[in-house]
């Protein structure tokens, strides 16, 4: 197969082959406020939920120091990494864990914002000076919706990719030995503070002046008004 650089063609739309990203940092929480950081995780996914639906996420937990609020170093054994997958991942769309191992995959009924809050925070534990907490929540497989009336997209390598629900496209796609990134990825890290990074890999969502881009901007502005701080300088423009 003749390979060419990735290029996504969307019918009735000019090709926009550059990405867009944004990072936001949530208000600082107390070291022992595990529930507060879970609320921030839920709020981040809630802000994007009408357009971005995680179908698989990878969650890393840690022991957090109550004295400093930072993830503890050199704890043993480390809490396990977990992968949660929602039913209905379409054919050709894959779940690719970010870590080698790989962690066991757990099927769950839903990865909606409230369900994710419950899953990530299901296990509570403490040790002297430490509290069990989440430190990373990363989407592995994502569906994103578009308001454009299209039922398929076309790529040079994959041919036609059908929407698995009207207007919803999922990824990453793995077909014919060729891989297409998910339309959008979301990373949440809880280091000193909770930080969310959104990376858009495909137009329409990356295309300037699109409804999809406007939705993402509006979601970031809602979080901004809730006290999150945008870090636009780090975004690819």
């Amino acid at each position, binding site marked *: 197969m*003749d390979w060419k650089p990735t290029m996504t063609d969307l019918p009735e739309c000019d090709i926009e082959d550059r990405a867009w990203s944004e990072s936001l940092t949530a208000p600082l929480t107390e070291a022992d406020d595990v529930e507060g950081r879970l609320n921030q995780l839920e709020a981040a996914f809630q802000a994007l939920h009408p357009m971005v639906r995680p179908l698989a996420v990878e969650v890393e937990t840690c022991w957090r120091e109550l004295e400093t609020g930072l993830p503890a170093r050199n704890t043993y054994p480390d809490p396990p990494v977990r992968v949660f997958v929602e039913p209905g991942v379409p054919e050709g769309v894959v779940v690719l864990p970010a870590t080698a*191992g790989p962690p066991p995959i757990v099927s769950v009924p839903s990865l909606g914002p409230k369900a994710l809050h419950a899953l990530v925070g299901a296990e509570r534990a403490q040790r002297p000076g430490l509290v069990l907490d989440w430190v990373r929540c990363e989407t592995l497989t994502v569906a994103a919706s578009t308001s454009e009336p299209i039922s398929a997209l076309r790529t040079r390598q994959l041919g036609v990719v059908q929407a698995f629900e009207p207007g919803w496209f999922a990824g990453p796609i793995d077909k014919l030995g*060729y891989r297409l990134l998910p339309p959008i990825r979301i990373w949440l890290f809880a280091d000193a503070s909770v930080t969310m990074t959104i990376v858009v890999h495909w137009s329409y969502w990356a295309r300037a002046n699109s409804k999809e881009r406007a939705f993402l901007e509006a979601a970031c502005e809602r979080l901004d008004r809730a006290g999150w701080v945008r870090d636009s300088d780090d975004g690819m423009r």
Partner: protein
Amino acid sequence: MDPALPRSLRTTGAVEAALVTRWPPPTQHTRAGTVETARNGDITLVTGNGRRIARGNFFEDYVATLNHPARSPSAARVPVSEPHVRALTVFDVDGNVLYRYTRNARTGVWTGSRP
């Protein structure tokens, strides 16, 4: 060699990875003080009363992460691409090498070094 890859991307030679990052990261604020990261990767927590607490070295600590599977596979934080590369070099945005990780082909153990 990964047979799933298109022919033009296959190689039988050694594969290395490169990472470009803005370095050092900005100071982080915590309830206990501020976290400073030096160019060499040293991390220091500076408390409100000026006490400086060493928090390890970002680059050196990642060597332990890369070698983690031997300790606890279920808790591995190793990137999924790790088995496919023999070295990882970290650059700053100006192209200067910050740190280099190499994997011993015989033992599989990762070590780190500064330029």
